[in-house]
């Protein structure tokens, strides 16, 4: 059997529709489609309020994923792609959204989306995605003031966690919890590079360290890397974490502890920030187009 016969990195896909809402009553229906390197998200908004969404793994062909994720979000709502007044594509694969009226960078969309999810007090957004990590400073309307991004190195991104999940054989959605399941924190693994950190983790497992302890050491090294990026952009409260890795409690709780700042709690799935931001931009663009703005 190949080492990839069980794929522990494969997180579950999902969708949701807000119940008891009639989209026919909405004046402006927009969509934001965020094609990330690992996950793709579609958010459907009625007059700027989230109505339906879907989250799925990005496939080999971004165009197909874009169509799939959007039709999945629309499923059972009675809405069709044609009913959407305006669509904005964002994310790593944003140029591959065939029905998008426009594309906007994920930096702008994440800031805007975080503003929607967490409210106007947000000043620092940390977005940890599948293949990059961004620290974004924004103002009271969700406009980007400055940002720093690591998109060159897998360390400190979701991809690093996927590699690790496969190594220790723990499903990625349980990894964070597993890493917290021990009395005392070990020292972090000493390598930053995912390839080297993986080799180091393997050596620790062979030395007899428990999975939980190695997971904690790996998470700690990742957190060091992420905090380094955050510190360079400068943190101002309120602070929030978005992106797929925001779901990993092992990362989030350690960022909170090591930074000494508690991130705001999300009232919506933080993986949607980019797609929501894109759908809100779509609304603004459409209003401009029809002369409302």
């Amino acid at each position: 059997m190949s080492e990839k016969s069980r794929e522990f990195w494969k997180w579950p896909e999902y969708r949701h529709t807000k119940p008891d809402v009639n989209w026919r009553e909405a004046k402006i229906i927009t969509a934001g489609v965020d094609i990330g390197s690992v996950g793709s998200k579609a958010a459907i908004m009625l007059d700027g309020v989230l109505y339906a969404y879907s989250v799925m793994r990005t496939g080999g062909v971004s165009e197909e994923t874009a169509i799939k994720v959007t039709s999945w979000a629309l499923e059972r709502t009675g809405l069709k792609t044609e009913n959407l007044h305006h669509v904005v594509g964002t994310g790593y694969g944003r140029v591959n959204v065939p029905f998008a009226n426009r594309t906007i960078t994920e930096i702008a969309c994440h800031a805007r989306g975080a503003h929607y999810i967490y409210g106007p007090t947000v000043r620092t957004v940390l977005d940890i995605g599948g293949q990059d990590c961004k620290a974004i400073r924004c103002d009271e309307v969700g406009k980007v003031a400055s940002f720093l991004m690591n998109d060159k190195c897998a360390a400190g991104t979701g991809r690093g966690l996927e590699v690790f999940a496969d190594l220790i054989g723990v499903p990625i959605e349980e990894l964070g919890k597993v890493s917290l399941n021990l009395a005392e924190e070990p020292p972090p693994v000493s390598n930053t590079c995912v390839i080297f950190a993986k080799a180091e983790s393997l050596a620790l497992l062979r030395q007899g360290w428990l999975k939980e302890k190695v997971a904690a050491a790996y998470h700690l090294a990742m957190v060091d890397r992420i905090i380094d990026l955050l510190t360079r952009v400068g943190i101002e409260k309120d602070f929030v974490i978005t992106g797929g890795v925001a779901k990993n409690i092992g990362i989030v709780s350690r960022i909170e502890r090591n930074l000494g700042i508690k991130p705001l709690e999300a009232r919506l799935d933080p993986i949607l920030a980019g797609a929501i931001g894109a759908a809100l931009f779509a609304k603004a663009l459409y209003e401009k187009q029809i002369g409302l703005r």
Partner: protein
Amino acid sequence: MITAGVDVGAKYVKTVLLENGKNVLTRANGIVEFDVWKSATEVFEKALLGVGLKRAQIAQVVATGMGRKIIHNKPPINAAEIVPEVIADAKGTHHLIPTVKTVIDVGAEEGRGVKVSENGGVRDFVINERCAAGAGTFIETMARALEVAVEDMGPLALKSTKAIPMNAQCCVFAESEVVTLIHSKVQKEDIAKAIHDAMASRIASMVLRVGVERDVVLIGGVARNPGFLPPLRKELNTEIVVPEYPEYVGALGAALLALEMEEQQ
């Protein structure tokens, strides 16, 4: 007088037994297993056995490489002294090629650039020990993605004349990029060349931080890879010399330093 140098690298242990600082009596190597001390000891004893010598007949042993501390003052090797790789590299290369000014050492997990002084000392150096993309591991990881034996990677790359850019600078991301290239039906040899080109460009930008002055010598295990030399020459725009046993240069340098120590005493 016989001295020995042991280079305990990330992937291989290399040892050289040297007579009077001139004749290499033997060379031996072996993979570094989980127990590094054991791997080093086995390689060292293999070298002794090959020429029918005993440890007592070796006047002095100097160790270098990532795992050098493991054999420092520890029997049976009992390395009396440990030196950083860059010092051993400069010494060994200068012995083989006295006109050397710049040494580029690309090992399994580290890349180094060393500016060498007239007498074989270190004037300046730069090391990448943090990122797998700047070391032999990069080509090894890509070989796995390409399903090609690592020793076939260089020869495969030499078959291609195309220049396909690789965007990823990280081993992990490059792996995905290689898979994407395979899916888009790019020929294996073209992908292999792209991999070597990318690696050469990274090593070149590292070495340029200390400056490149001729003669330039490439050592370390990756110097054995014929696909790496052409793009590195191109990137640095200079001739590059590869000595006969490039992976043993560090161990040779350590053996030379062992002799110097003995002579001083």
